[in-house]
């Protein structure tokens, strides 16, 4: 299953304070700008697509629109199944997407098991399938010891595993991860990286954004470089390095941005 976007845009309004006019009055005016500017992209099954870019490039906004948490100002997001049929209905999209970001916190007053069965009910899964799936997930993420503890009492690493469990419950075909390893220690981020790799082996689509270039270089099959709301480069890490004549992704990143800035001026 592929996830694609077509000329996707998100417009925001910002207030700009004017310089004082002759009467000495302070005024402000509104100004529209594109946080995501006509982005057409695609992520295919069995592939990990990295979305890289500096702060404020529009990564989070783009991923939020892909996860249908945010409505696009223009353009559309859709998934395409293996027969080539496309779906744009947000509810259907959400049923097929597992979305994880630093902002998706869990309900502290529930245990992992309670949370999972609550989610399964909302996803419309039947009782037997739910129970089976929950045991499966607890097994995969080895959470047996703390599956019945309240989430508020778990450690950071355990919470992160619970968060992954949340994305897994409805067996989605597409994963969208917004900086999933941000602020985690080596072991916890390794667990997440391994999880993404294993999902790729199962033919799932993984979209992921990060600031850790080494991680992206090692993990991603393909990279989309986002800058000022536009995609300025698309290719495998090797292709991008070759294009810019650099030896690692960190330098590639810098070179690509410099090239764009230079081109603009």
């Amino acid at each position, binding site marked *: 299953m592929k996830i694609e976007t077509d000329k996707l845009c998100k417009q925001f309004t910002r207030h700009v304070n004017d310089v004082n006019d002759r009467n000495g*009055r302070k005024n402000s005016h509104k100004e529209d700008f594109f946080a995501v500017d006509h982005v057409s992209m695609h992520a295919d099954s069995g592939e990990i697509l990295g979305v890289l870019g500096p702060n404020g490039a529009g990564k989070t906004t783009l991923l939020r629109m892909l996860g249908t*948490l945010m409505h696009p100002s223009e353009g559309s997001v859709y998934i395409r199944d293996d027969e080539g049929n496309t779906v744009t209905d947000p509810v259907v999209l*959400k049923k097929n997407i597992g979305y994880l970001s630093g902002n998706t*916190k869990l*309900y502290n*007053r529930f245990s992992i098991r*309670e949370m999972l069965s*609550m989610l399964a009910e909302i996803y419309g899964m039947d009782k037997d399938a739910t129970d089976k799936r929950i045991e499966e997930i607890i097994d995969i993420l080895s959470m047996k010891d703390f599956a019945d503890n309240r989430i508020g009492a778990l450690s950071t690493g355990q919470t992160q595993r619970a968060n992954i469990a949340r994305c897994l419950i409805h067996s989605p075909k597409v994963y969208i991860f917004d900086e999933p390893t941000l602020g985690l220690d080596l072991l916890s981020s390794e667990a997440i990286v391994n999880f993404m790799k294993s999902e790729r082996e199962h033919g799932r689509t993984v979209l992921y954004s990060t600031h850790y270039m080494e991680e992206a270089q090692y993990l991603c099959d393909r990279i989309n470089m986002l800058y000022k709301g536009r995609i300025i480069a698309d290719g495998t890490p090797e292709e991008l390095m070759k294009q810019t004549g650099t030896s690692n992704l960190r330098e590639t990143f810098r070179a690509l941005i410099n090239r764009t800035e230079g081109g603009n001026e």
Partner: protein
Amino acid sequence: MNKKIVSALYKKEITDILRDKKTILMMIVVPLILYPLLFLGSFVLFSSIVSASTSKSYTIALNSVNDTEGMKQYFKDNEKEFKYTFIFKDPEEGMKDSDMLDAGSIDAYVVESVSDNHPYFEIAYRASENDSQTAAGMVEKMLGRYRDELRSEAFADQGLDEKMIMNPIGFCLKDYSSNEENVGFLMGYILPFLLIVSILMGALYPAIDTTAGEKERGTLETLLTLPVNNMELITAKFFAVSTIAVAAAILNLLSMGLMTAFVADSMNMVSSEMKIDLASFLPAIAITFVCIIVFALFASAVSLCSCIMAKSFKEAQNLTTPIMLIFLIGGMAGMIPSLELTEKTALIPVVNIALLIASIFKFHFDLSIIAIVLFSNVAYSALAVVIMTRMFSSEDILFADSAASFRIIEKRSDIKKGQIPGMGDLVLLFAILLLGLLFLGSIFASKFGLWGIIMEQLMFLVITVFYAWYIKVDFRKLFHIRGFGIKALIGSIFSWAGIYVILMLLSSLLVVFFPETADNSAIVELWGDNPLWLIILSSALAPAICEEVMFRGFMLGTLENRYSAAKAVIITGILFGAYHMSLNGLILIGILGIVQSYIANRQQCIFLTMITHFINNLLAVLSARYEEAFTKALPFLSGEDLPASTVAVMALSGVAMLSLGVGLINNNKNRRQSSRESG
């Protein structure tokens, strides 16, 4: 909407709320522990005061002119009936009675003097001391008894019939209301307030928890990843909060009811003659129960509506403070004797529930009004839920930092100069003004007549300007303070005159469909015999200034900053019509308000609309005051039985004047702008 999803979400919300210790504390511990403690505490306090004050002795000094010892003996002989003892203390050497009173060694002293052969006793005491006050009261009673005895003796000496002279007629009060009615009256007095407060308290906390709390804990974004639409989400939250509010209200009621019964029982209040037939309250209790549910829906919807804008607990608490104040004031409606449940008051939120509960406990059942109250509450709640679904999909609210729309909550020194009020400010100000209109307006008008109307208008003006001053608005911009040229003035007057003529025609149409709209006898009655200048002052000049400042100033200025000019103008106009609180007002004054707002918006000048508003009201005053002369002089303005040709001419001239006026206004504006740009 998928019922399964809503029920899953509802279960989740309820579990989440109930697992929060703070909610449990507010919901269960407070009513179940605090009320009994309060009741028992005050009961114990009361009974200890009662037992302490029986069989107590008081020290007094007594000086009679000729028979001090005889007086003391009289006091001693009669004190048994009062359950008190008097101890007499003679002044010590070199000490005056007043010194002893000051020193606290006596509770009161009595000095007799004689003027014109008439003995006169002065009882000196200190009202600030409990014992002194009681002692003085005792002495007063004792002297009263002494006086009565002397009087009886005097009558007997003269051989007169004391009873016939002192009480030539007898009378007494006899209360024919039943015990149930008395209790109902008392219940109607306090119950609405207690219920409204406990329901609001029950709703507020979970409302904050499920909205701002969810944002603060970061679970909102998680929730948005689920295949759930806004309607399902809001519905689940709304019903969960309502459930908790109903539960809290019932817990509160039970706790209060049990405690009252317990206290009443232990104080032996339930003697045979005070017996109350509780069954007679069953209909009232049943309706109250429905009221609780309906009002819980309303309170939940309102609290959710405001909490949804907040990004944190603290902000939510700030946002809900005005709601709390409005609910508290509205809850007291049941205690205002002049406020009755009518078809009009049945539409006012909060107040209507308070009045309904008060009236059913007085055994007044008016089914149509009960239906209006219940239906309007459900309708308001539904409206609020729809607004919330809209708001909830707004990404400003979901992802933006904050919707800080209530500036008045901030400290004045923190507010920057040159503000334009937020939507919250606008809603809050007009809620205050509406409450003022409903509660104070009628009182002012009935007490002070036309001056009351002027006072009311001035009060609104002061509140509006104060609010604006407090949040440091840009006065010139918000209130559209700007000079105007002669062309703009003519344009405004033409626009007004045009719409006036068109509205005359429309109103004669409306009279056909809604006959009650033509009734303006109430205001004419209020004018009475007052001089014309006072009528003009109160009904034309004061509204022209005050209402323009409120609507074309504060409201229009705020809305212009937020919405497009067209939207701002139309909303201001319609609300201006609604403010006049009649069907007639909503349509005709609403249209007039739109034209007024248009003038103010295009010219950015409030003085123009003040002038047209004044002319408009002046014409209304004169035409009502001199109805006959008016109908004779300008028959086409009466609007009755007009020939088709006159209607056509009026419609045409109205449209012509309106378009001429609008043309002038816009033309003038353009010229002004271009001259400004080039200069």
